[in-house]
């Protein structure tokens, strides 16, 4: 690579660095937390009720897991798309976004842990 190309790349890189707001990143991180949380909530609901388990059975051989994960993934992607559009040019208080995203993630992990889910469902 010659020096003019390097200068051009550095200029592009610098301009990208100065222009990019944190909104798109915040949308990705928050929606990932929400997606994990939704997946665990759907899993608990499918475990708790037979009609819900039937509803979530999109593919019979896999059972309710197919609907639980497909619905959660779909809602995660929709949330990501919506937030990314809303926050495309915005700069947000990232510390607050992180707190909310990690709270969702933590709750999601807790709800997928079978002893906790069983305790919640009184099993």
């Amino acid at each position, binding site marked *: 690579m010659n020096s003019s190309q390097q200068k051009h790349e550095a200029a592009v890189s610098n301009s990208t*660095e100065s222009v990019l707001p944190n909104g798109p990143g915040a949308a990705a991180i928050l929606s990932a937390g929400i997606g994990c949380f939704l997946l665990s909530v759907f899993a608990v609901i499918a475990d708790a009720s037979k009609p819900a388990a039937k509803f979530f059975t999109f*593919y019979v051989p896999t059972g309710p897991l197919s609907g639980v994960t497909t619905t959660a993934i779909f809602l995660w992607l929709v949330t990501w798309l919506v937030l990314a559009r809303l926050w495309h040019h915005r700069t947000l208080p990232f510390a607050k976004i992180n707190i909310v995203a990690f709270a969702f993630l933590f709750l999601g992990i807790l709800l997928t842990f079978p002893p906790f889910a069983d305790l919640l469902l009184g099993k």
Partner: protein
Amino acid sequence: MEISSRALVTQVHGMLFGVFFLLLVFGMVVELCRSSFTSQPSQLSAKGLSLQRFYLVFTAVVGWFAVLTGAYIVYPWYRAIPPATANLANYPQALLKSSPTTAGWHSLGMEWKEHVAWFAVIAITMAACVLIQYGRAIRQHPQMRKAVHGFVVVAFLSAMVAGLFGAMLNKHAPVRGGTIHQLMQERR
């Protein structure tokens, strides 16, 4: 030396996609930790940046292959309901649940693994997109960088839980059946 088609697919799911995904995510954890302690951001060439992007996308793709083959190919064999007089050895979930000494591998191991593994791919897909979109500019957003690090570490731990329980489940109640493939024949 022979292997059944179901055992082979289970190995591809766990040992190829699963373990490879775990290694790739560990690579991301190491690189993100290393980059946190460098005073100067790495000056990758255009080819280096392309390789970095390829690594991130490849990691996410391998993760998706791992969860999708697990949920839609191996899991149906695992959870198949045996007929009344069937040999439970061919029905892993029923086999595990038939004894109180092994039931926990299903009620804790599989129940946790089948959900938490998806967290890993969600987190890695998000991390790959953010790291590709922001590139070096992410150092201007330290909170965002911390969040991405956190999610990647959670992804690694989730993949570890899934991998560990997957290996233990396959040890206690291996997925069997399907066509038998002869890999090698011993000469006598």
